[in-house]
């Protein structure tokens, strides 16, 4: 206990927060499942409207960024500061790419008059309205998490540059990384459930 910092305690605190996030998104997925059971044909019809290519690209982007964040922790542990900085900048860049894709995706949907409370959805089938409602709530909340994750990664990046995050004290980076991986975990379920339903 030379430093007097309880690293395990810090990590447990972060995990407790992540548990609440898991239950939050878990609740939304249960809602998805219950309505999928009720309107399976509309869910598959709605799923076909979504762009699989953008969905798949975003999955790859998030997986790669998760890898680079994990690698940046390894770099910090090995005292390779420059590598760590490079990896973190790349990860944040991946977050930007994800959001830009999301922007174009949502933009195209808005263009086709598919958005919450739009004329097409309100006067159309109930099942489709519910599918797109869930789509906007879940991907929107997920997008918000991407933004928060990018902010946390940026703070960690600044701290690494300033020499505040080092091989003996990197809990901030580790917890920011855990948050980023959680964002990835959620997307791993969002992608097949929304984009790939037959």
């Amino acid at each position, binding site marked *: 206990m030379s430093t007097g910092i309880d*690293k*395990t305690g810090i*990590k*447990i605190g972060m*995990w*407790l927060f992540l*548990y609440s996030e*898991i*239950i939050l998104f*878990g*609740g939304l997925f*249960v809602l998805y*499942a*219950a309505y*999928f*059971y*009720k309107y399976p044909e509309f869910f598959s019809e709605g799923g076909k409207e979504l762009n*699989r290519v953008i969905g*798949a690209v975003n*999955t*790859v982007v998030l*997986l*790669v960024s*998760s*890898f680079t*964040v*994990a*690698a940046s*922790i*390894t770099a910090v*542990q*090995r005292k390779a500061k420059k590598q760590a900085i490079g990896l973190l900048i790349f990860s944040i860049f991946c977050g930007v790419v994800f959001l830009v894709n999301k922007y174009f995706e949502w933009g195209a949907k808005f263009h086709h008059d598919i958005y919450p409370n739009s004329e097409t959805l309100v006067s159309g089938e109930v099942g489709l309205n519910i599918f797109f409602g869930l789509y906007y709530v879940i991907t929107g909340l997920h997008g918000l998490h991407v933004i928060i994750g990018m902010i946390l990664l940026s703070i960690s990046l600044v701290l690494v540059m300033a020499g505040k995050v080092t091989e003996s004290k990197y809990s901030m980076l580790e917890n920011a*990384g*855990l948050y980023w*991986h959680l964002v*990835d*975990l959620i997307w*791993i*379920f969002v*992608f*097949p*459930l929304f984009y*790939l*339903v*037959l």
Partner: protein
Amino acid sequence: MDSQKNNHILSYTTLALVLGLLLVLTGVTVGVSYIDLGFFNVPVALAIACTKVTFVLLFFMHLRYEGPIINFSFIGTISFLLIMIGFIFFDVAFR
């Protein structure tokens, strides 16, 4: 002892292998989605997603190297999630 566990360093090679596996599994999900398996469409997609999530948790999120507190509390969370999903399905499926 505890601090040594905390300082476990994952090599780039291990991380890259995990990433490779995750990308392959993503390809598999996309591929499988073009085949109509009827009832099994969703279960298969979820099984692949769960496999991917397990690898992210074990390696990227370091769960494999954590102590008992984090491991057990994580399993506890997932148990409660399963209880929530399970009981809602008892209700929804037999209405």
